[in-house]
């Protein structure tokens, strides 16, 4: 029983990291209508920046984390301006998808050239070790991951519902043309979305590498795909959906690994996704859009 709860908590920890990444995916999709395949690699860049700042340059931990957030925010905005914006009105939505894949390759290979291919040992940014709660020994990173994800989702919801830029984001996600007629700067809003999404990716990168301390240029790829799956699972475009989707996915992955088969854990995650989509074709919280003729 104790081991079941330990697994459950580990699953929630991994799931909360997926949730943070998935929220970035889902926001960009909801507002810019594109799948940002480079999102997973921004996670990796965030982890590398904090690694360089903390382990190589010896800066204090909070400074390293803030540096990673700033670097990723700038990176996200620059990528959007250079690579995605010119293609926003392209004839095919696939054009920007392929460009995003190009950006993903670019980030991975830049990191490969700068940092090399051998995995780096990432020093956890969480200062305390394990915490004993009743019979359970819970790792510090787990507590921090779960807490950070809850804080971020609450803050994001408050931002979207209570501030003008947040309302502008909501408006853009519903109807971009109508939003621009109301005087909302659509370009500015999309840039803001990329900034927020990338900042969250940096945080996710730091947390991910604190929990699983091996850092290489492809670190972000698989969590990126899993988070994409989580976003679809919860209904792409929905922030609470991404949160729930991430948590469920993390729990399924860890429990599947512990009780069914460690080699098949990915297959289990993806099978659950397929089953959910068969019964809820737009994900758990996705809006069913009626097509008009």
């Amino acid at each position, binding site marked *: 029983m104790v081991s079941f709860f330990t697994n459950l908590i580990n699953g929630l920890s991994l799931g909360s990291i997926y949730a943070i990444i998935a929220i970035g995916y889902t926001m960009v999709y909801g507002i810019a209508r594109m799948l940002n395949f480079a999102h997973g690699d921004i996670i990796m860049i965030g982890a590398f920046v904090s690694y360089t700042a903390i382990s190589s340059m010896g800066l204090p931990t909070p400074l390293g984390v803030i540096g990673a957030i700033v670097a990723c925010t700038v990176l996200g905005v620059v990528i959007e301006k250079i690579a995605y914006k010119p293609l926003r009105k*392209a004839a*095919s939505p*696939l054009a920007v*998808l*392929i460009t995003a*894949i190009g950006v993903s390759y*670019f980030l991975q290979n830049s990191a490969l*050239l700068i940092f090399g291919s051998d995995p780096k040992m990432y020093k956890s940014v969480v200062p305390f070790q394990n915490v004993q709660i009743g019979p359970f020994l819970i790792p510090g990173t787990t507590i921090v991951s779960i807490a950070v994800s809850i804080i971020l989702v609450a803050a994001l919801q408050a931002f979207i519902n209570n501030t003008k830029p947040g309302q502008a984001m909501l408006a853009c996600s519903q109807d971009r043309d109508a939003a621009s007629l109301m005087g909302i700067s659509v370009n500015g809003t999309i840039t803001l979305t990329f900034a927020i999404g990338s900042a969250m990716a940096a945080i996710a990168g730091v947390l991910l590498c604190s929990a699983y301390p091996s850092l290489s240029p492809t670190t972000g790829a698989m969590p990126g795909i899993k988070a994409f799956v989580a976003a679809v699972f919860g209904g792409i475009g929905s922030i609470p959906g991404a949160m729930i989707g991430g948590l469920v996915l993390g729990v399924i992955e860890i429990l599947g690994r512990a009780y069914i088969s460690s080699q098949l854990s990915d297959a289990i995650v993806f099978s659950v*996704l397929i089953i959910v989509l068969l019964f809820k074709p737009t994900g758990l919280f996705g809006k069913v859009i009626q097509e008009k003729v």
Partner: protein
Amino acid sequence: MKKYLTTQDAASRNDFMTYGMVLAAFIIVQILSATGLLNSQMKGLLVPLCIYSIMAISLNLVVGILGELSIGHAGFMCVGAFAAAFFSKCTDGAMPDILRFIIAIIIGGIVAGIFGFLIGIPVLRLNGDYLAIVTLAFGEIIKNVINVLYIGRDANGFHISASSANNLGLDAATGEIIVNGPQGITGTPKDSTFLIAMIVLIICLVVVLNLIHSRDGRAIMAIRDNHIAAESVGIHLTKYKLTAFTISAVIAGFAGALYAHNLASLIATPARFGYNMSIMFLVFVVLGGIGSTRGAIIAAVILTLIPEVLRFLANYRMLIYSIVLIVIMLINWSQRSRAWMEQHKLGRFIYKKKSKAKEGGA
């Protein structure tokens, strides 16, 4: 729509150019290799080039003609590869090599087609990005399952296990492990030659181009252009979607069979059958001009050659490749560059290609 009726000739001319291009490529390669101008590195690339071209044709059928995004096509290739290699391993020596290889290719196609059909039934109910993610999920599941699959054979027949080779319970004297989990299938006969790969490529081309111009093909493209309108004139959506998806899977299975017989050992690694591979096929299709079969083949050849040609750049190779990819996409698709090219009369080639892609020509 009116244009369809009048462009019948243009369409067949267009197909003729596609066949001509492939045949010309074949003849040029034959001349080059006969005169010894082809180095061994290029010779080793010939079969993969055909395989990737076949994959480009296959995916173009789903993405360009049917209009659905699939990012798990490497999964079908993987199924076809393992089915064909399994057959070849079991029947090696029992029949003439060339006959065995032909049957292996057909088996690869059929098994991949069955998977395509079975997956297509539930998947094609979804649309857009949801369909894409399910195809991705499927590709990852296939890869994952094959990595834990052990199949052995002894005098008593086949033994299957999902945990380890020792659990197969093989007879020590006659037992032979065929599929060895993460080690995959080793010792598949190396039958794939440029000639056979080229023949398969041309067969796939004939099938797909004829499909596009057939009644069924028109129905499939009608679904792509507007599925509501298509349904309202009596086109059975599921039937035609499933037809296109299954044919595409069969072709991917052929490519997989060729792939399996081109390697000494077949392993379902992420690099070979993972999502990156599926994405690479998608890049071929999009860069070739979505819906253009000829464009997809050209893109497949160029994009396979670029990393090889850039080999002298060593570590910078993939970095340059990614920059080239981004720049080509920006030049080809952004509104500003299109307007500039139109102004300077440079865009005629691209525009022509695009308008044809819209018609669904070759």
